[in-house]
């Protein structure tokens, strides 16, 4: 059976180019120009999936991206596997391999179909009530089973091998949709010379024109000719960019929109090696013309979900655009005129067509339909259907003017295809995403765009004007105005189309069927029936947002594109109110499912975030350093020698620094050049201590507070000249501190003449610490008297190190004699090497951040952000000595707040465990009485905790309520392993409290 349902001629497929594809392991033939859906239908395949909950056989409903049912897994090899892809938008290529979803073992015989027979057990919201006992069974039994039984496709298991790109563009006019309205708008805007972008999700321009045979309306001189001419005209305009296969996925603030272009998805894998798979366009448009057309509504009747039941416009599209006859015995069921065109076109193509219209009289197309051989059945509805894997029979009944069934019940009519039309929903999704309001239009029985707060306009069918003439003329006018040109009186568009008779809303088709089989589906994808909506109302839900979540109507990959208005109207009818009174649910981005790859673009792997490396990085890497991330920096964490673990390496590094000397890469420290006549006064306000008298050549440690009195950063600042200072900050705090300084200068003290410049990356900073530090450094130094008295602690000198201009700061974060050598970053590696060589005879070590942490903690030096958390004052840290008594500074008044002066605030203390080998967990809570019943009173937490080779035991820093008065007390710290450690409270300075080593 090869393309048995392909018509001999007509449509946009190339019958001369047959191509092979595979569905569920079976090989088929299709044509260039087919979608997977049209190719399957050409082969007579309607059964393409099993439904989400009841596992009912399902077919293709639509012909575009609104498809709720025909979801397939497309396998592209090499780890490429796309679940939940709509067969209606998958372009066929040679070798395409697709699998159906949610069936076991096959579509024809699916064990899950037992759910359909058991459906009384699974009403809407059943999972909220059914699987509650015993509670422990949820994770182990219920949830895994439910996930197995209910579902969509399978997530790919391998990394995505494809490339995805982002493009950022601006334009004067963005036109969304290349149907008649969009084409007319793009042409008009383009002719004015504006920068125009036209996007359309189809592979070729034309929109509804591609499926229009002329039965409903013909654009002169012919639909396809018009589309082709428009495409050629647009291609010739240099400022117009046309993006096909591109879906406008999101409309955000200030006319910022995203569009997803499928660049190579329509090609066999590997055929565009230089191209990305998809491209996400991020567009800022001055004005937007929305021309996204309308989506046909299904009718809600019993048995409306069998394979072979589809939208009338889809049946027509498959015939006219793809040359596929979707059935030979076709029943058309409608409440409006548009489906007559499908009936007429299918009858002319050779199908036997019956048309059931809920209305007593049809419009002008009725006589044309009869002439084409269509059997008309006015005031007739479908009350049920038959057919296991495809519709075989429909049951028709007549209705009276009130919509009640009259006369004989359910007269059977054989059919292999049932086309339904419940009217049209203007596609208002983008208008609504842009925060536009919606208005209910009674004549369309649908929502149309109301006020639009952003500069956009909806034209054509998406604005409720379903006529070709309206689309063309409205589009042209909108295009001109959006481009800033003057409106011209109507450009001549010939469009002959019959006058449409009004539609008759029939939201829930009456039926005499009851019980199990009587399922009238509202939302095909989520298996929501009209009854389920009633269940939600019985449960007392009234808000449409609640009803949506309880029943899941309008959720899933199609987001209710075909179901939402039907659901609203059925709810409204059951509540005896109007559709607009029920309201709508929110339209959200993206409009269609979008790949994570496209959203991520290049921002993955090494390009996920900035990686900053110091000039010493390569050396450290060669020495086998293990790195840690500090902000965006890579910092050497520790330098293990062969056979050493982190613990051993850190012990060795610590010992060496205390006994001889160690070299540490401190280049990541934030450095800010502060200069100007008021620089000194500025520092005096920003730091808690006094800066007016700091002489040139000296350094001072400073603590920065927020204005509420809490510590925000710290660092040493050196006075370079009377009006110039070199400020250092924490590694992670550097950008925040610079922004902080700028904020005060610009917004609070604009009278101060101060400039702040980040110089972090200009300098390589090497901290040499230990009793032999001077001996190692001095031989390399020119122009500086390195004698301890001539160059005391907290001073800096300028000279040369290893022949390179350098600033040496005599400061220490270890408690040992310390020199921080600053050289221009480009010389960093050279000077590091020179110090390293000079240190060899002294047994120098390179140490990392972990050793630095241990050494500073032994001295009770805090790390802002580790020992503080934004709720800690200088007084809490025992640093009242740095808070000056006279004059204002940022945070001063904050510190005077009553709550900050309480004695029982959490204060910094040292902790020693009873067991000297036990290293407390950082972050562990501290309690006074371990036998207190739960919930216990937590009085603090461990902030820093290490093993110390110098102390010969473990030690910790902690913040403890009233800590200053608890010295000598025994407290208790519950550990992650469940044990509780007894600790005694001690002073936070564990080593050399007099600071003798510093001054050596």
């Amino acid at each position, binding site marked *: 059976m090869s393309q048995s349902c392909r018509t001999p001629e007509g449509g946009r497929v190339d019958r001369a180019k047959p191509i092979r594809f595979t569905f569920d392991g079976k090989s088929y033939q299709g044509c260039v120009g087919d979608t997977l859906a049209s190719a399957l239908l050409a082969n007579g395949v309607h059964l393409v999936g099993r439904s989400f909950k009841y596992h009912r056989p399902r077919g293709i409903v639509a012909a575009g991206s609104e498809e709720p049912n025909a979801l397939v897994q497309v396998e592209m090899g090499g780890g490429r596997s796309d679940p939940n892809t709509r067969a209606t938008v998958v372009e066929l290529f040679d070798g395409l391999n697709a699998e159906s979803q949610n069936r076991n073992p096959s579509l024809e015989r699916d064990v899950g179909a037992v759910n359909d027979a058991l459906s009384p057990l699974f009403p809407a919201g059943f999972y909220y009530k059914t699987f509650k006992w015993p509670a422990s069974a949820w994770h182990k039994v219920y949830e895994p089973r439910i996930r197995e039984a209910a579902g969509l496709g399978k997530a790919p298991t391998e990394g995505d091998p494809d490339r995805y790109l982002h493009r950022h563009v601006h334009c004067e006019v963005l036109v969304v949709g290349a149907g008649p309205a969009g084409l007319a708008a793009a042409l008009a805007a383009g002719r004015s010379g504006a920068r125009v972008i036209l996007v359309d999700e189809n592979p070729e321009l034309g929109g509804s024109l591609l499926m229009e045979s002329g039965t409903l309306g013909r654009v002169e001189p012919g639909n396809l000719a018009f589309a082709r001419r428009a495409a050629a005209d647009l291609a010739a305009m240099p400022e117009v960019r046309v993006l096909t296969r591109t879906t406008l996925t999101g409309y955000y603030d*200030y006319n*910022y929109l995203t569009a997803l272009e499928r660049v190579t998805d329509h090609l066999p894998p590997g055929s565009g090696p230089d191209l990305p798979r998809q491209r996400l366009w991020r567009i800022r448009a001055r004005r937007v013309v929305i021309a996204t057309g309308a989506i046909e509504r299904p009718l809600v009747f019993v048995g409306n979900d069998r394979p072979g039941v589809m939208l009338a416009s889809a049946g027509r599209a498959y015939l006219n655009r793809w040359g596929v006859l979707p059935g030979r015995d076709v029943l058309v069921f409608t409440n409006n005129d548009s489906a007559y065109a499908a009936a007429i076109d299918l009858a002319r193509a050779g199908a036997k067509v019956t048309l059931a219209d809920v209305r007593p009289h049809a419009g002008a197309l009725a006589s044309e339909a009869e002439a084409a051989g269509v059997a008309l059945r006015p005031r007739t509805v479908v009350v049920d259907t038959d057919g296991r894997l495809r519709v075989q029979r429909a049951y028709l009944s007549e209705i009276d003017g009130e919509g009640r069934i009259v006369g004989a019940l359910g007269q059977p009519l054989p059919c292999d295809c049932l086309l339904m039309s419940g009217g049209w929903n203007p596609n208002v999704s983008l208008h609504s995403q842009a925060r536009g309001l919606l208005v209910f239009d009674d004549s369309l029985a649908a929502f149309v765009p109301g006020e*639009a707060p952003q*500069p956009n306009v909806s034209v054509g069918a998406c604005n409720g004007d379903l006529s070709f003439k309206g689309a063309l003329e409205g589009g042209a006018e909108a295009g001109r105005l959006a481009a800033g040109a003057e409106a011209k009186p109507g450009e001549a568009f010939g469009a002959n189309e019959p006058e449409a008779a009004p539609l008759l809303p029939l939201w829930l088709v009456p039926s005499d069927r009851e019980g199990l089989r009587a399922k009238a589906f509202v939302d095909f994808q989520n298996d929501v029936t009209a009854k389920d909506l009633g269940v939600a109302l019985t449960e007392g839900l009234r808000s449409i947002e609640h009803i949506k979540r309880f029943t899941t109507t309008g959720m899933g990959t199609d987001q209710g594109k075909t179901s939402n208005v039907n659901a609203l109207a059925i709810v409204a009818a059951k509540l005896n109110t109007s559709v607009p009174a029920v309201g709508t649910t929110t339209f959200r981005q993206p409009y269609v499912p979008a790949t994570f790859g496209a959203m991520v673009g290049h921002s993955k792997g090494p390009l996920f975030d900035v990686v900053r490396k110091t000039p010493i990085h390569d050396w450290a890497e060669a020495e086998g350093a293990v790195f840690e991330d500090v902000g965006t920096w890579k910092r050497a964490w520790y330098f293990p020698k062969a056979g050493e673990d982190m613990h051993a390496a850190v012990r060795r590094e610590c010992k060496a620094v205390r006994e001889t000397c160690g070299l540490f890469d401190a280049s990541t420290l934030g450095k800010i050049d502060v200069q100007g006549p008021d620089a000194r006064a500025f520092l005096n306000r920003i730091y808690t201590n006094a800066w007016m008298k700091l002489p040139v050549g000296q350094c001072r440690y400073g603590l920065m507070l927020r204005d509420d009195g809490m510590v925000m950063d710290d660092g040493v600042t050196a006075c370079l000249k009377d009006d110039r200072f070199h400020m250092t900050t924490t590694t992670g705090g550097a950008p925040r501190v610079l922004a902080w300084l700028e904020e005060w200068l610009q917004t609070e003290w604009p009278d101060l003449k101060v400039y702040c410049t980040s110089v972090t990356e200009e300098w390589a900073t090497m901290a040499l610490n230990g009793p032999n530090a001077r001996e190692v450094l001095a031989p390399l130094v020119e122009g500086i008297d390195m004698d301890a008295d001539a160059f005391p602690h907290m001073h800096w000198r300028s000279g040369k190190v290893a022949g390179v201009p350098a600033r040496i700061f005599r400061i220490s974060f270890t408690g040992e004699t310390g020199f921080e050598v600053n050289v221009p970053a480009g010389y960093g590696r050279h000077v590091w090497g020179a110090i390293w060589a000079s240190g060899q005879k002294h047994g120098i070590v390179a140490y990392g951040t972990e050793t630095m942490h241990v050494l500073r903690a032994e001295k009770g030096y805090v790390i802002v952000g580790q020992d503080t958390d934004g709720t800690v004052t200088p007084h809490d840290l025992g640093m009242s000595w740095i808070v000056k008594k006279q004059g204002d500074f940022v945070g001063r008044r904050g510190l005077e707040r009553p709550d900050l002066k309480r004695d029982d605030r959490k204060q910094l203390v040292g902790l020693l465990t009873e067991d000297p080998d036990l290293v407390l967990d950082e972050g562990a809570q501290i309690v006074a009485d371990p036998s207190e019943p739960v919930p216990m009173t937590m009085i603090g937490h461990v902030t820093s905790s290490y093993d110390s080779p110098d102390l010969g035991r473990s030690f910790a820093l902690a913040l403890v309520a009233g800590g200053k008065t608890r010295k000598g007390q025994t407290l208790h710290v519950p550990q992650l392993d469940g044990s509780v450690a007894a600790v005694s409270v001690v002073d936070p300075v564990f080593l050399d409290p007099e600071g003798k080593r510093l001054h050596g």
Partner: protein
Amino acid sequence: MLQIDCPFCGPRAEIEFRCGGEAHIARPLKPEDASDETWRDYLFQRKSPKGVHFERWVHSHGCGRWFNAARDTVTDRFLAIYPMGEKAPSIEELKARLPDVGSPRHAYAENRVAPERVEGERP
């Protein structure tokens, strides 16, 4: 994503900016004389109006300069952008600038309110 008219650089995407919260919060000139209540209000009390909100923005990934803005929190439209230190425009005047979404011409209106340009040297 909002589009914000930096008075120094022109219209730029929101990701280049940081919002500094409510504008025109005066730091008491003599903090040491401020009562606890005054200092509390200065530190913590902020408005969250539905409608016109005066706020500070900084073009942190651009020129690095601070400026004031009036934004309608309902529509997210910026109604005015003006230099630091300048008085806030009157709310009535700003409300008159709110887009007239009901008018048929609105679809083709300007997407932005041009800021008052700031000339010359920084203070």
